[in-house]
């Protein structure tokens, strides 16, 4: 499989503190690549660097084998889409917010609206089309946010814990719909989470990040069966204990 996006020797330091030090990271075409780790592990920083939203102090990003220069960042960024944990919209209607990314790419308003409508339907929120985007509930907003990202028909999709702020019922139905869309589109996906369940559900490959450093990389199965460090073992055990407690509460 061809590598779509790759990061080499990435280092991010803020106010003298090293937040991220990743020697190599690469996403192959069509794969779903998860990055997992506790809060403060540097997951979101890594996503911003890979999505060309933050310039690292050191390191390079390659897109389809070509090194991305400063001049090309916007052009390459237009081949990507990002869904953030907190869906934010401009002060406009839902449909206009979805069409915005397409308008930015120079697509005519009418065509952009048609494409936006299609993706609203795919995410089962077509009835929200003319609603004021900032008046949506959490679940609705995240569905619209996903529709906005898919409407761009990106080559790489970045997800920054998009399901973490939702209640369990909304989360369950959204994950099911999202996974169905993702399967049919086959978009290369980079997603970060602190939930092992999401990794097990979606990911082909997973990278564990702790304290800004890669602790392990492999398939989700390998991670569960053979965690390489004690810290990772404790992380997995904590997750299993939490899941067990949750099951007992139900």
């Amino acid at each position: 499989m061809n590598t779509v996006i790759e990061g080499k020797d990435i280092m991010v330091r803020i106010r003298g503190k090293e937040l991220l030090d990743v020697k190599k990271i690469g996403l192959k075409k069509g794969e779903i690549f998860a990055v997992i780790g506790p809060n403060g592990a540097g997951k979101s920083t890594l996503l911003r660097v890979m999505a060309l939203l933050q310039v690292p102090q050191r390191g390079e990003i390659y897109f389809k084998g070509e090194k991305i220069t400063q001049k090309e960042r916007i052009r390459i960024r237009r081949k990507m889409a990002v869904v953030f944990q907190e869906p934010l919209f401009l002060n406009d209607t839902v449909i206009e917010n979805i069409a915005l990314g397409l308008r930015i790419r120079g697509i005519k308003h009418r065509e952009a609206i048609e494409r936006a409508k299609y993706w609203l339907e795919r995410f089962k929120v077509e009835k929200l089309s003319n609603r004021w985007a900032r008046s949506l509930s959490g679940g609705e907003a995240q569905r619209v946010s996903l529709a906005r990202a898919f409407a761009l028909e990106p080559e790489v999709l970045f997800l920054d814990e998009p399901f973490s702020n939702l209640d369990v019922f909304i989360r369950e139905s959204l994950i099911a719909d999202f996974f169905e869309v993702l399967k049919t589109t086959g978009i290369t996906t980079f997603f970060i989470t602190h939930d092992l369940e999401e990794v097990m559900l979606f990911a082909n490959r997973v990278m564990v990040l702790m304290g800004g450093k890669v602790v392990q990389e492999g398939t989700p199965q390998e991670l569960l069966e053979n965690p390489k460090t004690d810290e990772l073992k404790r992380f997995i055990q904590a997750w299993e204990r939490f899941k067990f407690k949750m099951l007992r509460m139900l």
Partner: protein
Amino acid sequence: MDTIFEGLKKAIVMLVTLDADIYRITLFTLKVSGLATLISLAISLPAAFFIAIKEFPGKNFLISLANLGMGLPPTVVGLWVCLLLWRSGPLGRLRLIYTPTAIVIAQTVIATPVILALVTAALQQVDKKLRLHIMSLGATPLQMLFLMAKEARYSILAAVIAGFGAIVSEVGASMMVGGNIAGYTRVLTTAIVLETSKGNFEDALALSFILLLMAYLGTMALTYLQQRRHEDEYGN
């Protein structure tokens, strides 16, 4: 009390009977102050965008200068511009002193810090995360400026009104660099000063009511837009 009443009556008569002098002065005032406001906005918008989103040494110093400039006395600006444009001054060759252009220059100097400081504050209030969202959509810096300005449009509109209000009501700079020449550089405020100094309080009052009416119309337009936004957000 009678004088105020007579002044109000005269203002209405002047407006209703289409008094040529009054219309000329009012239109000239609108033209000069409107142009100065537009130039100030054209300078302030990109500058405010740069200040709002970039981190650079001296950023706070620059913002504090703009904030200081909000209280710049028009007579001081009038003096500086006058010295610059004076026939023996550095820009004397341009022969701009006592021309409408000179008033536009002076008023631009007065309005720019007001608009710059308020637009900077408005753009800084646009959520940083929203900026990241816009960036992730693939926006160019120019598209980002446009979208951020659209997002802060009501505050920017308020900044424009404040800037326009500051110059349409100033008298010192217009008097010093324009010379209050009848039919050429006379604006409403300088006409009010002249009529007052001549003891024509009714005329001065009439002009002041017209100036107030202009200010009120501007405020009303802003209020209308703000109320419309409220309706939009809640879908009612």
